[in-house]
């Protein structure tokens, strides 16, 4: 094909031609490796997100029982309705309805009780408390099913599995089928997932406590890290003399950015908890630790957006007689602000997902309820994920994936905000 390009010698042309096929094969192979590498990254992301979705989407649904309960006056003390053993009462009524006689050890009623969540007790108790006239009547009580019963209805616990390998007995399966046939079982949106704190009962556990804990923590982090980080960046970029001190500070910042996060956890434990005696597991300590971690990132991001402001702006302001400080605060910083805020939001999103340091400052302990101040013990979203992943109940696994979805959703919102900010206000010089 290239014979017209007159080769100097026939030999040279032949060699060129001969190698060509091999070289192009190598070229294609190399390109394929590149595509494969990208395929690995993209494929893994798809796998990861897909897996989290398939594992976690069921957690947003829950099965609850709406059962008619005869509020037996013989068992309920109107003065102290909370003291009543409603689950046992309901279990016995259901056994009677299904025609099952309990044995002396009460095994059947125990198994029946296990179908319902312990929440049944509080739901019924609250109903009586609100309206004592219900005693002696039959009312419909709506309460979640236990985690295992819920998993059974979701198909996570198979009927075909041998009985000793599943947490629901054959007898319970029979009862659950009857309850469903009788229309007592409803599939509803699992609102508790978003409205309650952590619990040892999977069916009652929610992420609210952790979300609030993370939010309080991020508040502390943002209030500390953003002003300090921006100020430090301004000094380094605009005021620092080129001397050993500023060089030393720079080296420090670069190294801090690469210090493993768990080391910050050790710092928090030793400095804030053991030395300063700040409250363990509190958003205050968590926020302080995350602030120190986020600082280098914010400084680096701020510096790069300050650098992007062209020197001509500074020169123009200085030439008009503005002082150095006025130039920086009235002209340079406002122009750099979109970039600064973008960097700050991204580093906050990163801090939101940080886990390791939280484990060391006590955020692995079980904290029910929702914190109302930065000094109270609380969980945080990432540490909640860690705790739930470690839990032995299988129902926590789907909730872990659901909590991950909540965490990722929050991070996506923050990153999207940063992108919008950048798109809207970014200026190219």
């Amino acid at each position, binding site marked *: 094909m*290239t014979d017209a390009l007159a080769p100097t010698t026939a030999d040279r042309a032949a060699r060129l*031609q001969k*190698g*060509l096929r091999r070289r192009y094969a190598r070229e294609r192979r190399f390109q394929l490796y590149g595509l494969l590498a990208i395929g690995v990254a993209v494929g893994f992301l798809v796998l990861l997100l897909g897996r989290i979705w398939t594992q976690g989407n069921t957690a947003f649904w829950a099965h609850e029982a709406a059962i008619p309960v005869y509020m037996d006056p013989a068992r309920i003390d109107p003065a102290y309705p909370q003291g009543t053993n409603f689950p046992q009462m309901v279990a016995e009524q259901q056994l009677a309805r299904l025609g099952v006689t309990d044995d002396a050890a009460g095994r059947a009623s125990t198994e029946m009780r296990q179908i319902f969540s312990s929440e049944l007790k509080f739901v019924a108790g609250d109903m009586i408390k609100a309206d004592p006239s219900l005693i002696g009547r039959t009312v419909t009580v709506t309460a979640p099913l236990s985690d295992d019963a819920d998993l059974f209805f979701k198909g996570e616990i198979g009927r075909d599995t041998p009985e000793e390998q599943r947490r629901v007995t054959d007898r319970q399966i029979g009862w659950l089928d009857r309850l469903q046939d009788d229309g007592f079982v409803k599939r509803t949106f699992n609102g508790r997932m978003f409205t309650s704190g952590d619990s040892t009962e999977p069916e009652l556990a929610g992420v609210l406590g952790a979300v609030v804990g993370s939010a309080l923590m991020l508040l502390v982090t943002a209030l500390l890290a953003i002003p300090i980080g921006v100020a430090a960046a301004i000094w380094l970029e605009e005021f620092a003399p080129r001397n050993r001190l500023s060089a030393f500070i720079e080296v420090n910042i670069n190294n801090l950015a690469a210090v493993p996060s768990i080391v910050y956890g050790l710092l928090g434990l030793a400095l804030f908890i053991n030395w300063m005696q700040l409250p363990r597991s509190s958003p205050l300590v968590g926020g302080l630790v995350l602030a120190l971690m986020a600082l280098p990132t914010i400084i680096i991001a701020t510096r790069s957006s300050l650098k992007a402001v062209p020197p001509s702006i500074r020169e123009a302001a200085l030439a008009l007689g503005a002082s150095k400080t006025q130039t920086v605060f009235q002209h340079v910083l406002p122009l750099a602000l979109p970039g600064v805020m973008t960097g700050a939001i991204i580093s906050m999103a990163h801090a939101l997902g940080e886990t390791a340091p939280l484990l060391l400052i006590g955020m692995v302990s079980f904290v029910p309820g929702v914190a109302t101040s930065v000094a109270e013990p609380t969980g945080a979203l990432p540490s909640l994920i860690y705790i739930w992943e470690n839990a032995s109940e299988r129902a926590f696994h789907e909730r872990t994936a659901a909590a991950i979805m909540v965490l990722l959703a929050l991070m996506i919102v923050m990153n999207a905000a940063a992108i919008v900010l950048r798109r809207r206000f970014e200026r190219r010089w």
Partner: protein
Amino acid sequence: MKFNIFRSHDDRGSGDPTQTPRMGGHVLPAARSDGPDGPTADAVEPTDATAGPALQPRPAEPLGPIKIRARDVSVHYGDKQALHDVSVDIPDKTVTAFIGPSGCGKSTFLRCLNRMNDTIPSARVTGRIEMDGQDVNSKSVDPVLLRAQVGMVFQKPNPFPKSIYENVAYGPRIHGLTTSKADLDGVVEKSLRRAGLWDEVADRLHSPGTGLSGGQQQRLVIARAIAVEPEVILMDEPCSALDPIATAKIEELIDELREQYCIVIVTHSMAQAARVSQRTAFFHMGRLVETGNTEEIFTNPRERRTLDYITGRFG
């Protein structure tokens, strides 16, 4: 005997069409057959008042046969057109200089000759460029083989961060031109000798090429280019980063290489063009304004713009 080797829009109508294919007694095959260069184009601009003197026979050095023939070459970078319908013939065994103010398209055109514009995603080349009668932009021409045929030297010396030896051996290695180590050693030595660098580097062939001086680096790059035995060498302002002494050496080298290669050199220095080239083409605003024997261009240009440029009124 008339020499009308160089053609452009400006001198398209300059003479009798029958004379066009003839040069130096060498008859170009099929010159009439390519479309853009056909009589229709001539008919558009039937006469050109300034063309007259160019047709006068001038004393000129013997030139080789036409090596590269370009017709209506245009280049777009995205929406911007960088080169407008350039048609030119470039003879073999001759140094041809492209001159013109910066941004005039001379480097762009040079990069068309070995299809380096392929490496720029937004670049689009139209028109026809023939090398020995073969369209270089045709699908059947492999840019890899084309570039083995057409060496290139850049503005800034760009030796690879390897040893001097490895730099020169790069081309023969990738193209598989040598079969043995001894063979390769021979090619390296021959190329370095031809580039006039052998005596300076023979004792440190394995030290890094980036450690040489600017002028030596540029000669190393030339040695690297001729190691694959190309037929054409393109030089894109090869001396602009060098001091006068190094420049003199490179110019001397170019003059020596002329005997074996078709050399095209882009330069912003008119003095350099006058010193090293036999043919000169003047580019302005993305168009080829005028081509001719170097002496003719510098002493008696046909175009006003050429005169203004060489006398320093702009550029």
